[in-house]
């Protein structure tokens, strides 16, 4: 799976939890989940659980704390898949 494929899969997961006033096109590499994409903490957990299923990985509390932006999420996924 190349980086673009990972990014697309992640975007598809995130888009499920976007509030009505944020569009899929607003998702950028540096987007902050809570501050910019307006995702609440409960939905951030949903994203993590979906990421775990999609990429067949397991995230820990520290990963959750570090996962602030889309880029952070991709880096965590890469680290877990390595």
């Amino acid at each position, binding site marked *: 799976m190349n980086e673009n494929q990972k990014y697309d899969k992640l975007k598809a997961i995130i888009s499920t939890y976007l509030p009505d006033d944020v569009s899929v096109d607003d998702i950028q590499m540096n987007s902050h989940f809570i501050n910019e994409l307006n995702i*609440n*903490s*409960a*939905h*951030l*957990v*949903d994203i*993590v*659980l979906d990421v775990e299923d999609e990429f067949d990985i397991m995230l820990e*509390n520290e990963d*959750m704390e570090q996962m602030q932006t889309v880029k952070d999420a991709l880096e965590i996924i890469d680290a877990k898949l390595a």
Partner: protein
Amino acid sequence: MPYEEILDQLPYTEPFLFVDGLNSVSDDGTEGFYTFPVDAYFYEGHFKNHPVTPGVLLTECCAQIGLVCLGIFLLKDDDKGYGNLLVAMSSAEMEYLAPVFPGEKVTVTSEKVYFRFNKLKCQVRMFNAQKELVCKGTISGMIKKNSSEQ
């Protein structure tokens, strides 16, 4: 963990406490009960001359017994401080199957779906004294202990 200790940590009080007691608590779920008081204030308005317990309060009762009591139990080893519980319901999908009238005692059971990263998701069921299913559904919420500096 004694049940009284769980009840003591509930962040609710009258007139918005909907737990009288617990029958069982484990890592996988809870069972508890509550009797809706005949003279509760909301029966005056719901409905005019025809008191029925509002569905939102059945949901609230399910959430307090099924989700919050379970969350307090699951957080028992988190020593960040007694009484600093933060709770926010994040979603509830409920079906209401039978009315609950003033003075009825209900029993709520919950089964944990998951508790991860402070999000607790449960299947809940409420039964009346005749053991008929009154409502059921899935409730999720964020639950954690705040550090005591706040």
